[in-house]
C-alpha cells in the first residue's frame, strides 16, 4: 500500500512552450544558470500566490524533463505540496506542482519581456508582505 505522505516519484514534465521560455531565460540570455532554476522559481511563485492555473495551461501536452531529484533534491516541494494537499495522491501533487511551474515560468517570462524582471524588487515585496510590512 502506498502512503499518502509519500514523496514524489517518477519525473517532472514541462510543455514545449515552457521549455522554450526556460531556454530563453538561461542559454539565450544568461539570466538563470539552469532551466531547473527557472522551473523551481516559477513553481515557488505560483505556490506562494496560490494561483488558479488556467485549464489551457494545465491541459497542455508535456514531456518529461527532470528527474525528481534534480528539481527537488531536498524534498522542499514535496513537503510543501504535502502540507497544502495532504488528501491527494503524490502523483496528483506532482501534476499540480507541474501546473504551478508552468504558470510561474510564463509569469517570469512575461516579466522578462516587459522589462519588469527585477529579482530584488519581486523578492523583497514577497518578504515584506510576509512580515506584514
Amino acid at each position, binding site marked *: *500500500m*502506498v*502512503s*499518502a*505522505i*509519500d*514523496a514524489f516519484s517518477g519525473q517532472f514534465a514541462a510543455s514545449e512552450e515552457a521549455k522554450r521560455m526556460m531556454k530563453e531565460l538561461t542559454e539565450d540570455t*544568461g*539570466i*538563470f*544558470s*539552469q532551466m531547473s*532554476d527557472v522551473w*523551481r*522559481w516559477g*513553481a*515557488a*511563485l505560483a*505556490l*506562494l500566490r496560490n494561483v488558479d492555473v488556467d485549464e489551457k495551461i494545465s491541459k497542455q501536452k508535456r514531456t518529461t524533463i527532470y528527474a525528481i531529484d534534480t528539481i527537488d533534491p*531536498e*524534498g*522542499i516541494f*514535496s*513537503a*510543501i505540496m*504535502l*502540507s*497544502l494537499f*495532504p488528501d491527494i495522491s503524490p502523483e496528483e501533487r506532482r501534476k499540480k506542482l507541474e501546473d504551478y511551474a508552468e504558470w510561474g515560468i510564463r509569469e517570469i517570462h512575461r516579466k522578462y519581456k516587459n522589462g519588469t524582471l*527585477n*529579482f*530584488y524588487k519581486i*523578492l*523583497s515585496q*514577497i*518578504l515584506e*508582505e*510576509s512580515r506584514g510590512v
Partner: protein
Amino acid sequence: MIIRKIELLNFGPYYDKKIVKFNNGGYGIHIIHGDNGQGKTTLQNAILWALYGKIYHRNGTEIKPTEILNYKARDDGIYMFGVKIFFEHEGRRWILTRKMHAKTFHNKSFNTNMKLHLTKEGEPLENPQLRINRIIPPEVSRFFFFDGEMLGKYEMLLEEDSPGKRELKNSIEKILGIPFVSTAKSDLEELKKKYEKEIRKIFSKIGDKDDVEIARIIDSLENEIDEKKKSLEKIKSQIKKIYDEIYEKKKKEAEYESVRKKVMERDDLEKKLKDIEKELEKLKRKRGDLLKDIYKYTLSPLIKIKIGYVSELYRKEFEKWERKTLLENEIIRIKEQIEKNICPCCGREMDPKKIAVLREELKDKEAELEILSKEPIPNMSIEHMKERLERVLKLTENADEYLSELKRVEESIYLIEARIAEKMKKISDLSEEISKSDVDEVKKLEIEIRRLAAEKGRLEKEREDLEISIEDLKKKKLEYMSRLSHIQSNEVKELKMRVEYINYILNIFEEAIEKYRIKKRQEVEKVSSEIFRKIKTKEGFVGLEIDENYGLWIITKDGARLGLESSAGEEQIVAFCLIGALNKCSSIDAPVFMDTPFGRIDVKHTENILKYLPELSKQVVLLVTSREFKEEDREYIAEHIQTELKLMNHGYKEGTKIEYYKKNGGEK
C-alpha cells in the same frame, strides 16, 4: 547709408505688401522682435537681396527665387516679389527697388525677369548695381548685416592659413579702404607708362637712325615686360589656386586623420567592451548562483505557515506507529497468557472467567490493530521533510543579506549593461562614420598633395625667374633710355619731369600703403580692444592684438597672448569686437543689422554688448527673439530705442505681419 523704410512684397513669409518703417529717420537703435520662424532672417535677407540680387542659406547655397516667393502668392498665381528700400546716403534720399516677376513658377523665368531701379532725390540713376556696390561692396556686407547664428562662420574665417582667412583679410582691407590706395598706385604706374611711350614716340620722330632703333628696342622691351607681367600675374593666380587646392586637400587629409583616430578609438572601445563583457559574465554567473536559491526565499513565508502542519502530521504518524507497536506486543502477551493458562500473579491455573476477559481484550486489541494496519505504513521521511523545511527556514533567516547581495549584483549588471549599450552605440556610430570614408583615399590625397606641392614649387621658381627677368628688362630699358638722354626737346623735358614726379609719388605711395595698412590695422586693434574691454567679463583679459593677417589674440593682464583656441568661450565675443571695430574704422557708411546676435552669448556679455550698441553705428537694428532679449534688457539701451516692432506669423493665409511691439504684452 541710413535705412528709413523697407517695403516687402510677397517676400518669404511676408504676403502682399508689408512695411517696416524706422523712426527718427532711421537713426538710433531699432528693435525688431520675433521668435523663431517669424521672419527675422528673411527681413535681413530681403535687404541683402535688394542690394545684391542674391541671398544664401546658412549652409552657403543660394536661395532660389521659387523659394523666396510667398507660398500664398504662389497659390494665388501671383509670381511676383520684391523689396523697396528707402535710404539716406551722403545727405541725399535714395530709393532702391528690386523686383522679380515671372510668368511661370520656374527659377529661370524669375531670373530672366529681374528689375532693378535706383533713384537719387527722385532722379533715376544708370548702372544701379555698380552704384550700390560702391555704397556697400558685397564682399563686406557681412560686417554690416550680421548673423549671430553664423558666428561660427566668422570663427572659421579666423582659421590659420585658410583661403577663408585670405578672403577675410581682403574684405577687411577693402572695408578699411586700403585697395583704393593700391588702385591709385596702379593708376600712377599706367600713367607713367603712357608718358614714357610718348617720350619714345618723340625720340622716334626727332632722333637719328640709332635713336629710332633704340626707341624701338625700348618699345619691344616694354612689350616684353608687359607680357612677362601678365605671365607673372597668371602664375601668381595659379600659385594661389594650387595653394587653395593644397589647403582643401590637407583639410580633407586632416579629416582622414580624424578617421584614423576614430579607428583607434573604436579599437580601444572594443577592447574595453570585451573587458566589461567579461565583468558582466562574472556578475551574471554570480546572479545565476544566487538565483539557485531564490525559490527557497520565495517559499519561506509559506514554509513558516506550513511547517506546523508537517510537524503535526509527523507527530500523529509517530503516535500511530507507537500505538501499533504497543498493540502488537500486547496481543503477543495476551495470547501467551491464554495459552499458558497460568495467572502471572499467583502462578495458579486461571479462572475461566478471567480467560474470557483476556480473550475479549485480545479481540479488541486485534480489531484496533487491524484498523491501524489498514493505515499506510508510517513514512519516516516526513521527519526528514520537516528537518529540510527547518533547514530552509534557517537558511532564509539571512534573507536581508541575500536581498542586498541580489540588489548589488542586479544593479551592477544594469549599470554594466548600460555602459555596454553606450559603448556599443559609440562603436556603431564610429563604424558608420569610418565606413563612409575611403581609406585608399588617404593615400591618393598624399600623392596628390605631393604632386601639387611640386607643382607649386615649380611655379614659384618660375615666378622668381619672371620677377628677376622683369627687373633685368627694366634695367635694360633704363639703360636704353639713358642712351637717348642726349636728345633734348621741351616736350621731352616736360614728359620726363612728369615721369620723375610720378616716380616720386610712387615711392611715397610704396611706403604710404604699408604705413596706411599698419595705421588702419592699429586703429582696428585699438577700437576692437576698446570694445573688448567694454564687453568682456573676465578680469584677466585686457585687450586684443591683431597680427598682420588680422589674426586675433587676447592679451592678458600679465602680457601673455592667448590664441582663440585657448579661450574657446571668448571666440564669439572676439569676433563681435572685430566686426564692431571694422564698422567703426570703416570708410563705408552703413547701418548695422544684427540677426539673433545674442543667441550664443551669455547674459553678462549680452548686457555689455547692449550697453555698447549706441556707439557701434548711427543706425543699429536688432532682430531678436524673446529668449535672447528680455524686458529687463531694454533698460541698457532704453534712451536710444527709436522703433520697436514685432514680427508675427499669422499662418499660411496672412503670413508674417509687422506690428508695433507692446511691452509686457500691453503698453505700446
